[in-house]
């Protein structure tokens, strides 16, 4: 074990969407930051298995930090995404009532949205609802139209944040699990990892599912993370015309229910389930979960069952016993606990980072803006704008952008090459998938599986 003498200004634990956003935010100032991540890549944990919705926060609990940060995060991400090339689309959402009791809940939902500062909701009657969504299953009684809800790519944001942070001078340590944290005499922290100790004046805990464990290492015990498993199924792109907007369920108290949503890649997603489990690494799907989601798909959009499922994925939400984020700044010691960030974390990520920066600034972290900041443009993997294969000028400049390797998702050799290089290269198939969409399509590697593995192996 080596003790690294040079103390960093800030060490951020966890390179999920929240930790990466905080690293990006702090890197805009004259600070010496290190982002440590237990996994092999940025955004490879819970952040990658999100419902990928851009929430307005209309249904948050009024007065909570979550309500405030989701609202602000929606604003920030809507501005940031087009600038750096994060696929995002404001599709609007319909919160559908399937019986009169649910429809009677509408006024309370609108009232809550008002309390959250969101006033654009309209009630849509049955006929108008079926005109908006003609493939909706029978039996709906009406809906609330939430026009500013949207869909966003869950893969690109953490990569964009981390890339920006890296280019601005932040250090990134991957495959570096934190095994212990100690307060140092005279202030600051020692962060213990298998490859040595890191000294930090300020510490940010964005460890997601393990944020409670890090918190306990510092003697706090105000929350416990219980992983809540959410299974999702993604239907074939050919099913995309069945749906225009996000279909939300009327919340029942414990969960927001199962939703159906278009994805920015052009699929239709149905999920999530909600099941509390013990194992923080158990991202297995279950036969009961898949059967339930299929029945929900049939209820919401009966024609969906005529299409194949392209992918099944499972996310673990960092749920706690509290109904708000566990975001606490311990001022005298210089420790920010950013725990219990549930599925709204993607929408709120930039606002959480902004909040943490301001609070740490108030706690004494010197914030002198850097004079020059990097401009980041991420490879675009959505369906709204042309991708490289569809751009004559890019192919003319580099013919590898015309050589399609992954047929289902139309990923070119040029994009795979790019993803294996650059400041934050993919190190495994999953990383390549999240950066390019390769292997994400309906054939799941039937055509290009071997070729993509060969290209990855040639780089490794």
């Amino acid at each position, binding site marked *: 074990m080596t003790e690294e003498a040079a103390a960093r200004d800030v060490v951020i634990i966890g390179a999920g969407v929240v930790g990466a956003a905080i690293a990006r935010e702090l890197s805009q100032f004259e600070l010496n930051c290190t982002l440590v991540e237990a996994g092999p890549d940025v955004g490879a944990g819970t952040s990658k298995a999100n419902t990928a919705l851009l929430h307005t926060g209309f249904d948050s609990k009024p007065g909570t930090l979550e309500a405030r940060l989701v609202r602000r995060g929606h604003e920030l991400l809507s501005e940031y995404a087009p600038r750096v090339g994060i696929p995002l689309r404001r599709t609007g959402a319909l919160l559908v009532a399937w019986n009169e009791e649910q429809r009677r809940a509408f006024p309370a939902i609108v009232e809550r949205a008002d309390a959250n500062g969101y006033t654009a909701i309209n009630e849509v009657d049955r006929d108008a609802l079926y005109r908006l969504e003609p493939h909706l299953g029978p039996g709906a009684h009406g809906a609330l139209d939430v026009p500013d809800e949207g869909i966003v790519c869950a893969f690109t944001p953490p990569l964009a944040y981390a890339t920006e942070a890296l280019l601005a001078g932040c250090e990134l340590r991957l495959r570096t699990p934190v095994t212990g944290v100690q307060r140092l005499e005279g202030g600051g922290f020692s962060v213990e990892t298998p490859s040595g100790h890191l000294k930090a004046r300020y510490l940010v805990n964005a460890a997601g599912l393990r944020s409670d464990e890090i918190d306990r290492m510092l003697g706090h015990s105000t929350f416990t993370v219980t992983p809540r498993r959410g299974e999702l*199924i993604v239907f074939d792109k*050919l099913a995309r015309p069945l749906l225009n907007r996000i279909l939300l369920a009327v919340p029942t108290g414990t969960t927001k229910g199962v939703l159906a949503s278009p994805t920015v890649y052009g699929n239709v997603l149905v999920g999530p389930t909600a099941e509390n489990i013990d194992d923080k*690494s*158990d*991202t*297995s*799907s*279950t*036969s009961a*979960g*898949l059967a339930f989601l*299929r029945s929900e798909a049939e209820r919401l959009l009966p024609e969906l069952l005529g299409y*194949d*499922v*392209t*992918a*099944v*994925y*499972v996310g673990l939400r960092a749920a706690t016993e509290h109904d708000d984020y566990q975001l606490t700044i311990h001022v005298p010691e210089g420790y920010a606990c950013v725990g219990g960030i549930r599925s709204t974390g993607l929408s709120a990520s930039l606002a959480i980072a902004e909040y943490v920066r301001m609070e740490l600034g108030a706690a004494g972290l010197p914030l002198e803006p850097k004079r020059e900041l990097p401009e980041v443009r991420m490879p675009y993997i959505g369906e709204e704008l042309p991708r490289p*294969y*569809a751009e*004559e000028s890019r*192919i*003319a400049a580099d*013919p*590898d952008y*015309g*050589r*399609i390797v992954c*047929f*289902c998702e*139309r990923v070119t050799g040029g994009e795979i090459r790019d993803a294996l290089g650059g400041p934050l290269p993919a190190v495994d*198939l999953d990383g390549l998938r999240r950066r390019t969409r390769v292997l994400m399509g*309906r*054939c*799941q*590697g*039937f*055509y290009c*599986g*071997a*070729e993509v*593995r*060969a290209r990855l*192996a040639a780089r490794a």
Partner: protein
Amino acid sequence: MTVVVVIGGGPAGLACAIELRRRGAGEVLVVDREAQAGGIPRHSAHQGFGLRDLRRIMSGPRYAQRYVHLVRRAGADLREEAMVTGWSEASGLELTSAAGRENLRPSAVVLATGCRERPRSARLVPGSRPEGVMTTATLQQLALQGMPVGNRALVVGAEHVSFSAVLTLAHAGVRVVAMTTELPRHQTLELFRAGASLRYRFPLLTRTAVARIRGRSRVEEVELLELESRRTRLIACDTVVFTADWIPDHELSVLGGLELDPGTRGPRADTGLRTTRPGTFAAGNVLQGAEPADIAALSGRHAAGSVARWLAGDRSWPAAVPIECAPPLHWISPNAIGPNAESPPRGRFLLRSRAFARRAAIEIRQDDRLLWSGSARLAPGRSALLPCDWVTAVDPLGEPVQLSTLAG
């Protein structure tokens, strides 16, 4: 000026292009999105290709090379690493390649895009998502490239291709721990089955489903469910090969607005292999998954005759009468009868069932008229051949033709 564009350079597309040139159809362009044309046989490094179309037996890669050679010699233009990425009335076929983007407006289009095995996700197999889960095609490409496959493999499925997977695994030094099928028996030739189990010594577990895959980074074990007893058991392996369960690669068919057949899930095609879109033909395994390469090639050759006649004729596109199958019959191919009452490829219809039957009584009716009756041996995953002499009795203005079986 390109007269015909053939999409897909596998056995069906290449055989179609060769025949089109032989018939003097004019300029023929074959586009293939792979770096090398030849289709699925490129990866099947064992013998058994070419019997019915080329009248000789060779390995898959040799067979693929042979067709590529023949198509070039026939004077067709073959473009590899070129993918049709769009198809609309306004811009025709949109082709993407390293040369850029092009729009093609040929007089005729032949879809020969083939089929693929449904992956684990489409089969809704629960569990974790470790490395080591693949289809036969991925397995065979990995093996061909000399890349590591695994040590102990479970083969899911018991059709011809499943035994092809066994051969590949054995060649790659991977032990087959078991083969599973949810059906009561295998669906290949008894000779293949007995030979393979004897030589490679693995159990064939019938009426068995894959209930769950376990493993963190790599497959560690698979939970199997015996469908009769509902008992589960664990089998240790690091590789799972999902074989068969074919689905036509119909994305372009849908993009082009072609009607699909609900059974085959490929484009609906009449016995001349005309689809529901004027000037658009389909051949090979995009029509149905999956027939052997030589059958696909003969289907391509058959389509070429219709294309040539259409190019030379009055270019009318008469509506065809669909053929509908009642369960347990799954599909028939081709699945429509045009007014000219042509014969299907090889003068036979391909019929698939979801159930086994040694001698199933089959009836073909239209508007309650009996067109044909006879018997067939039915097995899922294998086609029964039906004669075609009844097509002349089909009323081109009548209701859909109904195909049913009396025996289960």
